[in-house]
């Protein structure tokens, strides 16, 4: 029995991993030349179910918590268990209270405790929230490592083609906005990568603002990801000046050292979302769809990939029973 997976974003790769671990033969198809065309490539890589609960459904908190353990097990050494820091400018202190009232799993920090946690932010904020149970990863390293891992475990991976090398018993569509699903809508996100050797942060920092909340996620070698806008649009074009100004303003407001940073990359992608902004696994005939991860790809892919893999295995077993009768 062989399953063909379309799309090598976080959903497709996590599903490949789960199928292989259930003993299913997998071929992974990516119509682009490499992994960089997926929405996942532009992700923040925050495993932050408690923070996301501020605007997301209870399911995101519940199902998202499994992801931290999953990633730690699947890609040991790549996950940083540093938690998340949430701060706001003094005049937006109300935003911090609002955020706290919608979430759980945090402790309040005063200025000293905040400075002990992130010395570069010492004295800059009177208070903040620390979500100690959260984690983060570098999405590009994680996707690359996951592809290497499933390939080493026997999955075929074909790039720049739309056809499977051999016949499949079931096709899993994990192509995000490229999927032919009328219920999906695109939510445009824009991000920047900055090289800021003068700034040192060891964990994602969310900088609250009534209109323009942003986050800064540290990567290796002085690189920081700043994101991300949320625009109801299918526009794939380059990042706008307005969004760039908003993201940079926030980064500078967090730490003036970002003024000397170099902008090394700008990116814009489309998050696939269903009307309730929650992912769905649907099985119809010999096609499974795993899609709609919205802004929660790395956070929810583990749970939904496991669910999809279980359903596929059950479907293939029923199919082989029918064939034997």
């Amino acid at each position, binding site marked *: 029995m062989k399953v063909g997976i379309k799309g090598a974003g976080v959903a497709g790769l996590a599903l490949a991993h789960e199928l292989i671990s259930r003993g299913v033969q997998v071929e992974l198809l990516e119509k682009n030349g490499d992994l960089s065309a997926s929405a996942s490539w532009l992700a923040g890589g925050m495993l932050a179910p408690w923070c996301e609960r501020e*605007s*997301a*459904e209870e399911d995101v908190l519940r199902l998202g918590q499994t992801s931290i353990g999953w990633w730690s097990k699947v890609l040991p050494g790549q996950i940083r268990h540093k938690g998340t820091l949430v701060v706001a400018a003094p005049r937006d202190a109300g935003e911090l209270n*609002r955020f706290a*009232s*919608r979430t759980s799993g945090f402790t309040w920090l005063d200025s000293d405790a905040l400075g002990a946690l992130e010395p570069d932010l010492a004295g800059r904020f009177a208070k903040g929230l620390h979500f100690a149970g959260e984690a983060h990863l570098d999405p590009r390293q994680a996707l690359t490592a996951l592809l290497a891992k499933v390939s080493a475990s026997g999955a075929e991976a074909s790039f720049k083609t739309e056809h499977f090398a051999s016949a499949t018993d079931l096709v899993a569509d994990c192509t995000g906005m490229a999927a032919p699903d009328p219920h*999906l*809508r*695109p939510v*445009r996100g824009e991000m920047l990568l900055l090289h800021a050797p003068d700034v040192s942060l060891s964990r994602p920092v969310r900088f609250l603002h*009534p*209109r323009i909340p942003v986050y800064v996620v540290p990567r290796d070698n002085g690189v920081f990801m700043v994101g991300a806008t949320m*625009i*109801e*649009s*299918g*526009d794939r*074009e380059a990042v*706008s000046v307005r969004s760039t100004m908003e993201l940079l303003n926030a980064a500078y407001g967090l730490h003036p050292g970002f003024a000397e940073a170099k902008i090394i990359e700008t990116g814009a992608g489309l998050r696939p*979302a269903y*009307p*309730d*902004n*929650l992912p769905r696994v649907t099985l119809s005939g010999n096609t499974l769809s795993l899609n709609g991860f919205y802004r929660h790809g790395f956070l929810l892919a583990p749970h939904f990939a496991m669910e999809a893999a279980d359903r596929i295995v059950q479907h293939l077993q029923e199919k082989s029973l029918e064939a034997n009768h």
Partner: protein
Amino acid sequence: MFEVYGEPFASRFLLGTAQYPSPQILADAVRASGAEILTVSLRRETAGSGTGGRFWDLIRELNVKVLPNTAGCHSVKEAVTTARMARDLFRTDWIKLEVIGHHDSLQPDVFGLVEAASILSDDGFKVFPYTTDDIVVGERLLEAGCQVLMPWCAPIGSAKGPVNTDALRAYRSHFSGVPLVVDAGLGRPSHAAAVLELGFDAVLLNTAVAKAGHPVAMAKAFAMAIEAGRLACEAQPLEPRDMAVPSTPVLGMAVFE
């Protein structure tokens, strides 16, 4: 009935469509609110190329009147261009006109507002101007062709409620006969009830519902408060007095002083 530009509406609740946790919750909140007019922001959603498609479809499926807005426009030219894009996209000549004068406080630029209102009215638009509680600006907007005025009661998104009740009362009595919608600054249902009691015809709000812990329940709470406020206004509430007035007669009792 609340009538604006010749169209009657049973609901006096105009609701915004931004910042909800999901389109599904937005749809549920709209149904709970009973709102018949929804305002949608064109600027961010289209990002210049009219591709907000699926989100628009979800709004259209709610089967309510769409009032596009020019939120985020900082100049007359930007606002006029956005209004024309909205007319093409939504096939409506209604426009909620915002010309923002200050990026941070979102205070309207009333000079640009009057100019843009005049251009758009001449172009056949039915303009709903987001303005301050300044009466002279209101008069200029009526001269420019507006048939409805939408004064703030506090800055956008501030949730402060009516911060200057005297100004709102003066505004209402000065513009008797003009439909008045309080737009911006409402935080709680009691704020909405208060401005309807003052005689305002309707309210327009967004953040107070969208960013509530339970947007659907809050939409319902606002709907009930708006209905209560309107009913109270029609029932002619007592004016405050400077002395106590017993509700039972004191005739026949001895008065010692």
